């Protein structure tokens, strides 16, 4: 465990009854990081988040926060904030009282509560709405109230459950900027859960891709997008041509194919985005099966001995007719090298 770890999950196993949702998860997060838990539904990302919040106690393993073991600390004493996907505002309280809720429980003096809530609401641009009830606000405004409500508590870690998924495109951009600003200004460690790779790529410093209750890959958005290390991640971020490699040979279609150039021995697979496929020259032969025009590019579906290949070319180039034979290459140096192929 590095000294920089602010929040660490150690061999964390989480279960609902007999169903294990997360198994032996190890993860360490630095102070002030903005981390995304990315994965399809059921991958354990929300479960992991809930256990960090203390809403679910682990079957085994430990959670450490800021040097202290908080595994058995109850949720109301963890200084972990959570912005729920549904916002979970208290419908019977005004916006002001929603934000003041936690501060009142802390029994802070009234003037201090007043000034903290005022500042909090101002920072999310909702000063004018303090007397309203949550039901009178739009979804985006409700979310900002929820954000302010968590932030006035000055949590050590702020968790956000699908923070952008309920917002429309314009609000999404606004909220994304808002979250980055809050994170920058307060330096709070943030973890958000999402199933949307675009959301994770644009917002996070680091992405934790999860699948079936385990971490599939951890890396910067660039790492995840350009250098996926598993078949699942490659597929998830848009590498559409994925092949297994065995003994340095590509396992595809009619049998193993020799590759130009050598591969590290731990390579289990190779993956190419459609635009990484070279068309018009190369050792492989295929037939154009279909084409689709998408403005700046043209996408082709090729029938090849390797199976179906998706390729993409600049739309400025002449269109290739369906049915024509074509040579192509899958350049090994451009490919993502997958260490895990399962």
């Amino acid at each position, binding site marked *: 465990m590095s000294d920089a770890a602010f929040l660490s999950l150690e061999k964390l196993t989480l279960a609902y009854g007999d169903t294990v949702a997360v198994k032996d998860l190890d993860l360490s997060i630095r102070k002030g990081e903005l981390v995304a838990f990315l994965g399809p539904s059921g991958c354990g990302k929300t479960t992991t988040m809930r256990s960090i919040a203390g809403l679910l106690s682990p079957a085994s393993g430990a959670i450490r926060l800021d040097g202290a073991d908080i595994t058995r600390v109850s949720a109301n004493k963890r200084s972990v904030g959570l912005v729920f996907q549904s916002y*979970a*505002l*208290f419908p*019977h309280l005004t916006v002001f009282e929603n934000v003041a809720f936690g501060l009142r429980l802390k029994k802070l003096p009234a003037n201090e509560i007043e000034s903290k809530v005022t500042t909090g609401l101002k920072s999310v641009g909702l000063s004018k709405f303090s007397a309203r009830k949550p039901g009178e606000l739009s979804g985006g405004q409700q979310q900002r109230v929820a954000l302010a*409500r*968590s932030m006035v*508590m000055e949590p050590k870690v702020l968790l956000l459950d699908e923070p952008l998924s309920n917002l429309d495109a314009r609000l999404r951009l606004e909220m994304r900027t808002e979250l980055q600003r809050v994170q920058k200004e307060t330096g709070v460690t943030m973890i958000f859960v999402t199933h949307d790779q675009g959301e994770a790529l644009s917002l996070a410093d680091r992405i934790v891709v999860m699948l079936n209750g385990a971490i599939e890959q951890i890396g910067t958005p660039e790492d995840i997008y350009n250098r996926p290390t598993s078949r699942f991640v490659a597929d998830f971020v848009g590498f559409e041509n994925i092949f297994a490699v065995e003994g340095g040979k590509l396992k595809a279609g009619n049998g193993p194919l020799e590759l130009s150039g050598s591969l590290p021995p731990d390579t289990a697979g190779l993956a190419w985005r459609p635009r990484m496929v070279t068309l018009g020259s190369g050792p492989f032969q295929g037939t154009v099966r279909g084409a689709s025009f998408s403005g700046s590019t043209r996408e082709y579906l090729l029938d090849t001995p390797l199976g179906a290949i998706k390729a993409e070319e600049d739309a400025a180039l002449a269109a290739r007719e369906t049915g024509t034979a074509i040579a192509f290459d899958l350049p090994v140096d451009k490919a993502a090298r997958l260490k895990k192929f399962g």
Partner: protein
Amino acid sequence: MKPRVFTPLVLFLVIGFLIGPFFIIVAASLSGGETLAFPPQGFSLQWVAKVFTVESFRESFAISMLLAIGGTAAALVLGVPASYALSRYKLPFGETVRTIVSLPIIVPGIIVGLALLRYIVVPFGFNITLVLFLAHTALVLPYAVRVVSASLNNLRSDIEEAAVLLGSSRAGAFFRVVMPNIRSGILAAFILGFVTSFNQVPVSLFLSGPGVRTLPIDMLSYMEITYDPSVAALSALLAFMSIGIVFLAERFLGFSRYV
């Protein structure tokens, strides 16, 4: 018959059937005659005035009020936590419990009353007021559970988790964020329970003893002896009381959402 005529006619008959008796009672209670009759003979307020002078009415009214308020309150004390547990947790036999709780609605009151008398009051010599109170609590419980469950189901459970993460205890979260949001449901349940208990006849019929009689039972036995319009006057007064309560409930709580 054309639907244009038929539909309003049916509507008129149904409404007449439902509220017609109410007008008959009101008219009969204002009668100037000596016996309960319709159409009334003449006009007077003497029977309305007499209601307040009959001592047994005063006593049984007090008992009915006490039962209605106390029984409903007790049903809510049991019913609110039960509804909460049933709606928030996946309990083993949860559905069975829900069914058992609603049994008093299904089983005819006359059977409940007879059973309580025959197997509880007589063999164990239980205090009849106590059994009456327990019976009314049990009778109101299904309404309490149903109405409170409805408002709990409309309330997202994550607000409790939100409260906990803001520093509240689990119990604190219940009182701070759940209770305030189901308050109108609880009030609605109270009113429904109160009216149910107050108008209850079959169970109370069996659970009467010396000096212990609910108002409807007392009215029944009064009528067996004295056939004057004061019973009609009392009925009219009670009907006005119920209408008043339901009107206020609808006005302030949107009562009809819960029933």
